[in-house]
C-alpha cells in the first residue's frame, strides 16, 4: 500500500481538540505523522492536495443494516460499506437482524471476514437473545471474543422485564453495552406512522410517543439495578424519551443515546401523500420532537448521530403505505444533513458536529482507535469540502437500494476523499 500525504488541509480532530492546518502522512494503515505544512518529507508518497478542505477522522456509524447474510437483493456488506465510504464513514456497526439472525460467533466472524469485500471496517452488533426472540440470552462473552461490540434485538425490542435485566447484567459482566430499540410493541400493533392529527387525517394508525418513552423509562429503572451496566438507546425520536435519558444521565447512570439525521431533519409532514420513503421505525415525529432532537444534539445529551441505514428494494417500498417495510438509506446523506442543520442553521461548531459522527459514537460503543485522528491511530480519514452545496441524487447512491426521502435535497458539506485503514475507499468523481 502506497503512503498517502494529505497536504495543507485543516485538520479537525474532535477527540484531541486539534483544529489547525496540518500535513498528514498515512503509512501502513496508521497515521504516521502530522505536522505543520511543509515539514513532512515523504517523496514516495502519493500526494492529495487538501488545501481549503477539512481533514477529519473517518466517520463512525453505530447503527446500520447491511442485510448480509440473507438479503443481498437489498444490500451486501460490500455495497453497504461502499455507500458508507462515499458518505465519509470508515467504521460501521452492523445490526443483527440478518437472515439468519446474527446470534452466533460464527456469523459475527463471517461478517468481518475479508471475503466480504468491505470498504469500511465492520463492527458487528450481535443479537441480545437467541434469534432475537426475547427468550434466552445469547453467549455474550463468546460474541465479544468474535468481535461483537454490543448486543441488541433492534427492531424486536426486549419487552420482558426479567430478560432485559438479565441482558443488562450479563452484558455488564463482559463489558458490552445493551442497545435497545425503544418501542413498546404492545402499543404499536398495525401502526405505520406517528400518532396525532396527521395520522388521523391520513387514516393511518399512529404510534404514540409513550411507546418509546415508556420503554426507555422501564429500561432506565432496570439499569439502576445493574452495577456497571451500560444501556444505549437507539434512534431516539421523542422529547419525552430524551428527557428521561437526560435525567438518568444526571443521576449518574451509564446511558448513551443516538439520533438519526432524519429525526432531526424531518417531521411527519414529509409523508405527504403516503410517501413510503418517509416510513421508518421510529416514525418521523411532530415538530416539537424534532426541535427537541436538535436541542439534545446542541446541549450534548445526545452522544451520536447514527443513520439507521435500512436499505429496501424498490418493489418493497412501492407498496401501500401500511404494507411497505420500515426504513431508509442514510449513509451518504448524514454528513451533509448534519452540517446543514447543525452547523449552518444552528451554528454548532464544525468540530462538535464531527464529534457526533466520529469520536463520541466510537466512545459510546468502545471502538478503540476509531473516530480519532492522531499519530498512531488507524488511518481512517475523511477529507471534505465544508462549504460546498450540492444536491443528493438517490440514483447516484452506492447502496444497492435507493429508498431515501432526501432524493433531490440540497445540502452543504461534500465528501472528497475517504481513507479506511490507509486505503483510499472513496474519491469524489471530479
Amino acid at each position, binding site marked *: 500500500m502506497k503512503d498517502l500525504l494529505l497536504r495543507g488541509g485543516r485538520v479537525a480532530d474532535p477527540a484531541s481538540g486539534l483544529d489547525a492546518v496540518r500535513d498528514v502522512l498515512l503509512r501502513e494503515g496508521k497515521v504516521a505523522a502530522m505536522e505543520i505544512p511543509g515539514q513532512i518529507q515523504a517523496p514516495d508518497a502519493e500526494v492529495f492536495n487538501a488545501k481549503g478542505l477539512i481533514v477529519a477522522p473517518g466517520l463512525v456509524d453505530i447503527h446500520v443494516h447491511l442485510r448480509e447474510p440473507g438479503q443481498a437483493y437489498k444490500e451486501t456488506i460490500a455495497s453497504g460499506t461502499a455507500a458508507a465510504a462515499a458518505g465519509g464513514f470508515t467504521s460501521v456497526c452492523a445490526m443483527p437482524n440478518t437472515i439468519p439472525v446474527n446470534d452466533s460467533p460464527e456469523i459475527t466472524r463471517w461478517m468481518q471476514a475479508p471475503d466480504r469485500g468491505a470498504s469500511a471496517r465492520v463492527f458487528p452488533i450481535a443479537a441480545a437473545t437467541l434469534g432475537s426472540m426475547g427468550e434466552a440470552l445469547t453467549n455474550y462473552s463468546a460474541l465479544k471474543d468474535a468481535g461483537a461490540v454490543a448486543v441488541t434485538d433492534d427492531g424486536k425490542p426486549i419487552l420482558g422485564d426479567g430478560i432485559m435485566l438479565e441482558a443488562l447484567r450479563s452484558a455488564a459482566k463482559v463489558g458490552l453495552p445493551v442497545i435497545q430499540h425503544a418501542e413498546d410493541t404492545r402499543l404499536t*400493533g*398495525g401502526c405505520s406512522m406517528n400518532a*396525532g*392529527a*396527521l*395520522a*388521523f*387525517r*391520513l*387514516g*393511518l*394508525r399512529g404510534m404514540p410517543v409513550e411507546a418509546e418513552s415508556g420503554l426507555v423509562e422501564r429500561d432506565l429503572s432496570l439499569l439502576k439495578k445493574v452495577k456497571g451496566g451500560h444501556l444505549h438507546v437507539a434512534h431516539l425520536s421523542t422529547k419525552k424519551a430524551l428527557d428521561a435519558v437526560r435525567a438518568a444521565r444526571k443521576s449518574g447512570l451509564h446511558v448513551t443515546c443516538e439520533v438519526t439525521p432524519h429525526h432531526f*431533519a*424531518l*417531521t411527519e*409532514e*414529509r409523508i*405527504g*401523500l*403516503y*410517501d413510503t*420513503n418517509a416510513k421508518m421505525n421510529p416514525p418521523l415525529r411532530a*415538530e416539537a420532537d*424534532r426541535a427537541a432532537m436538535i436541542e439534545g444534539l446542541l446541549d450534548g445529551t445526545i452522544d451520536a448521530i447514527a443513520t439507521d441505514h435500512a436499505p429496501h428494494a424498490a*418493489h418493497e417500498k*412501492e*407498496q*401501500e*403505505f*401500511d*404494507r411497505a417495510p420500515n426504513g431508509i438509506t442514510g449513509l451518504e446523506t448524514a454528513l451533509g444533513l448534519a452540517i*446543514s*442543520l447543525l452547523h449552518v*442553521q444552528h451554528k454548532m461548531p464544525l468540530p462538535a458536529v464531527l464529534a457526533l459522527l466520529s469520536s463520541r459514537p466510537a466512545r459510546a460503543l468502545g471502538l478503540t482507535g476509531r473516530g480519532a485522528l492522531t499519530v498512531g491511530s488507524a488511518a481512517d480519514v475523511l477529507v471534505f469540502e465544508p462549504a460546498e452545496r450540492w444536491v443528493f441524487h*438517490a440514483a447516484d447512491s452506492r447502496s444497492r437500494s435507493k429508498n431515501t*426521502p*432526501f*432524493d*433531490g*435535497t*440540497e*445540502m452543504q458539506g461534500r465528501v472528497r476523499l475517504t481513507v479506511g485503514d490507509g486505503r483510499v475507499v472513496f474519491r469524489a468523481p471530479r
Partner: protein
Amino acid sequence: MAQTRNPSRKARQKPSAIPFFQPALFERPIHPRSAISSNDFSVAEVRRILMAADALEREDPLRRAKRLAKRRVALLFYESSTRTRTSFELAAKALGADTTLVSSLSSSIEKGESLKDTGITLKALGAECIILRSPYSGAPYLLARATGLPVLNAGDGMAEHPSQALLDLRTILQHLGVRAAAVSETCLRGVTVTICGDILHSRVARSNELLLPRLGAKVILCGPPQLLPETAAGMMPGIAIERDFDAALEQSQIVMMLRIQAERLAGLQIDLDDYRSRYQASAERIAAHAPTAVILHPGPIIRGMEMVSEVADGPQSAIAQQVHNGVPIRMALVARALSGEKKGGRR
C-alpha cells in the same frame, strides 16, 4: 397535478423542517382528473360535478350511452362492496363504457400480485380509468402514480371515500332545496351536520369532514373517545366535537350515522350496551331532539346497533335517496375522468 390543488397538503408543507428542503423528485404526477380525496375538488369543481350529475341523470339514456361508447373502465376491488361497486358499474355502463371487474377473490391479486403490477396489467389491457377500493389508506395514490391513469377512489382503508361525500352532499342539497348551480363557499352557511359513530375508522367521515366545511357547513362529530379522538377536530376549521349526542342532535339539520367497523377495531373493546344507550339513533331520541332533521347513513346499516328500523325506514330517513344519488354522482366522476382527449391507439 392533484397535489398542487390540494389545500391541506400545501398547508402541511409550510412548516418544513429544512429551509432548503425540496420535496422528493420521485413523486410521479397524479392524473389531474383522478378523484382520490375530497380535497381534489375546488368548490367550483364540486359545483361542476353536481351540475354534471343533474344533466347526466336527465339525459336520454340512448344519447348518454354514446358519451363513453366502448371506452374501458376497470373496477379493482380488494374489499367487498355492494352499493359503491354496483353504482360505479351502472354509472360507467350508462355512459356506454365497457367495464371489467377485478376482485380479490377472482384474480392474480390472490397470488400475491402487487397493486402496482395489477394496475400496469389493467392499463396494458386498455383500461383508461381505474376505480379502486382498497383496505389500505393511500392505495389510490400508489395506483395513480404507477399507471398515470385517472383513478377514482371507491374507498381506501380509513382514509377517504370522496364519491360518497359528493352523493351525501347532493342528498343534503336536495333536502335544503339548493340547486347544484348555487353551490358555493357559503351555500351551506347556517347548516349543521352531525356525524355520529365510529369516526376513527370511517373514510366516509373523513371525506365529508374535508368537503362540507368548505361549503360553509358546521360539522359536529359525535362518538366515544375510542372511536373519536380529539385530533379529529383538527382536520379543518369548522369542525367541532360534541360527546353528548342529544346536544349534538339539538343543533343539527342533518344527522349522518355511521356503523362500528368491527373489521377495523384491532383489539379495541367497546361496551356495546353502553354505546347503544349513548349513541344509537333511536326513535325516541330522534323524536325528542331532532324531530325534523334529515337522517343519513352510508350503509351498510347494522340495525339495532347505531340505528333502529323505525328511524332507518321512517319519514326523516334519506338513506334510499343517498343510494339513488350514487349513480348520477359516479356518472359525473367517470365522465370527468375520461373527458378531454380520446386515447389514441384503441381498436
